């Protein structure tokens, strides 16, 4: 125990905390997009497991399209590929009436192999495009004045353009779901598709719209992976971040703001794991678990809180009934 304390004390002394928080925000960016994508689908009553595969396709799309005209074409390409992959899943499950879960699993598996296949067709490489394709990076943007605020300036206002876009997307998705007609329809389909159908809302159409939006968001997530975090595509480079986004959404029961906060929490635990790897003697395998254990623990804690609340409501209603 004494050793543990000593290890932690030296660890805390060596950490540049400002950079640590800035890193956490950066690491959370793709998770925020993924969680928002999952939230839109979830509100429309569809649990989209295909986010991982959609991100992977977009990451490859970003790198390929960037070759044709630079970083912005790449970003557009990533969004288009994300959109297309959303359309494939929704076409299969909504028009083709396949089971959504199975479709998503099939899509993820197809994306893992398919991206390597396409990369091989285009470049002859089977592992990475780091040598075979020109690297493009989405610029870092420092916001004037705001960046000079101590601490917050570095953490929040010297980030990749996509990180700001992620913050904006949280607001946009919230606005879409809560303040627009389409958002209302989307939620009503999610709550009760039969009832929505009976008042003339096309469930299929809403499903397509939900997948289109989540596809675009996955496009940004993928572009962040291959044009900002690193500047090349590598097979299976998303490495489960899509699933983490999905569980962030789950933690917040599809509330966009909550999902973004949960993603930030994962960003922090990921940054913490990385920092501890370099600062302490804990075994790597143990530290690797941190983000995932954090997921399970936080889902349990949040569900417990929910249960307690529900009990209170039940008790309350029992009292008023008397």
């Amino acid at each position, binding site marked *: 125990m004494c050793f543990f304390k000593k290890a932690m004390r030296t660890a805390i002394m*060596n*950490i*540049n905390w400002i*950079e640590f928080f800035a*890193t956490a925000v950066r*690491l959370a960016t793709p998770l925020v997009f993924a969680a928002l994508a999952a939230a839109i689908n979830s509100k429309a009553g569809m649990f989209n497991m295909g986010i991982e595969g959609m991100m992977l396709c977009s990451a490859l799309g970003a790198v390929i399209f960037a070759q044709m005209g630079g970083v912005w074409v790449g970003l557009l390409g990533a969004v288009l590929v994300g959109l297309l992959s959303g359309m494939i899943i929704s*076409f*299969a499950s909504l*028009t*083709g*009436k*396949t089971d959504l879960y199975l479709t998503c699993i*099939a899509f993820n*598996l*197809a994306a*893992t*192999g*398919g991206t*390597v*296949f396409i990369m*091989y067709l285009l470049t*002859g*490489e*089977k*592992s*990475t495009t*780091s*040598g*075979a*394709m*020109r*690297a493009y990076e989405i610029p870092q943007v420092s916001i004037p004045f705001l960046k000079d605020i101590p601490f917050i300036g570095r953490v929040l206002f010297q980030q990749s353009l996509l990180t700001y876009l992620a913050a904006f997307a949280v607001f946009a998705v919230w606005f879409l779901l809560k303040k627009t007609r389409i958002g209302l329809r989307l939620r009503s389909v999610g709550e009760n598709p039969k009832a929505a159908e009976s008042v003339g809302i096309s469930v299929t159409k809403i499903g397509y719209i939900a997948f289109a939006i989540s596809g675009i968001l996955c496009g940004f997530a993928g572009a962040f*992976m291959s044009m900002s*975090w*690193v*500047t*090349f595509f*590598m*097979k*299976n*480079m998303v*490495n489960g971040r899509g699933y983490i986004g999905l569980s962030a959404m789950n933690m917040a029961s599809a509330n966009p703001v909550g999902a973004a906060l949960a993603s930030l929490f994962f960003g922090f635990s990921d*940054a913490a794991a*990385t*920092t501890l*790897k*370099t*600062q302490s*003697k804990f075994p*790597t*395998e143990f*530290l*690797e678990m941190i983000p995932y254990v954090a997921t399970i623990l936080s889902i349990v804690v949040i569900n417990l809180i929910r249960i307690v609340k529900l009990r209170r409501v039940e008790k309350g209603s029992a009292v008023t009934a008397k």
Partner: protein
Amino acid sequence: MKKLVSILLVAAMAVSLAACGGSKSSSAATSTPAGDSTASSAPAATGTKGKIAYIVGNLGDKSFSDSGQRGIEELAGNGWDTKTIETGGPEKADKYNDYILDAIDEGYEYIVASSTYADNCIGIAKDYPDVHFVIFDTKMDPADMPENMTCIFYAQNEGSYLVGMMAAAMSTSKVVAVDVGMDNPVIADFVTGYINGVQDYDPTVKVVKAAVGSWSDPAKMKELCLTQARDNKADVFYQVAGGSGDGLFEACASNGTWAIGVDSDQYAAYKDSENPERADVILTSMLKEVGNSFVSIFGKIEAGEDVWQKTITLGLADNSVGYVDNAYFQEKVPEDVRAKMEEAKAKIASGEVTVKSYYDFTGSDAEAQYEAYIASVRP
């Protein structure tokens, strides 16, 4: 209508799945023009010396597997009938046996496979006494080995020692890093040799070691290096991380630190690529000449030497490990450092200097001894 659409979709899905499943085998065939075309087009003419199957996870890593592939291509040129079989990563581990058995059924009498397939090969070797197995990149006790198997082991600690010396010399902050994909005995041997080299060159230089936890997560690797540069002030990074290593080069490019490549000449690989400026962070690469070792062992087999049921260790003396000495290395690394590296190389090759190895840590607490060794050089 809906039924028709769903049938079409199922068909499309099946085709796409088949396409990605098939990508591995079809790419295996096309990526090995030298080896495979001779194997399939004119086996009778070229297959006089024997049939060799090279079992590999995936080609295209620009280091370990590709180095082996170059050796296999050279063997094909020397008159061996060769075939490269790509099995895919650990997620396909349940099919490893099938790939090896298929190769044996096709008449391949020598199976060349990395340590990943060691257990599979040991299991199969007993049932096929006429087939010979060459397992590379591992050490095995002859007692545990079937009669028709041999092991090639590389003294990666010796090569790592030399690049470790250079890292210590090039570091201005007196902290250098070594980042690995995952921990295993071979990787630990790299780390041990590197630390030994750093410390022998300058005992005041500290070493930080970390593992990414994956061979294909460059994003995590980049983050790890940036953290080490920031919090530990490390300024020379040695990657032993396969695909994740690309993230290390990017981190070095972004914060102006130095990198050391591994297995193949990674400077050359980047220099001919679409991103030549990325090569400029790579001072040198520790070489592990997997391909050369294949050529040499099959030369011995051809000469009728008994190579079976033993572990063959190849080190600096056999030119199987080393470092890249190119123009960029000569430009950036000072003369006296290079001279010291050459001197150490000669001494190690002659046996005058022995480099510490992970395999020196023995007993039940070997792992703890290794951990203590790393801890002793932590900043």
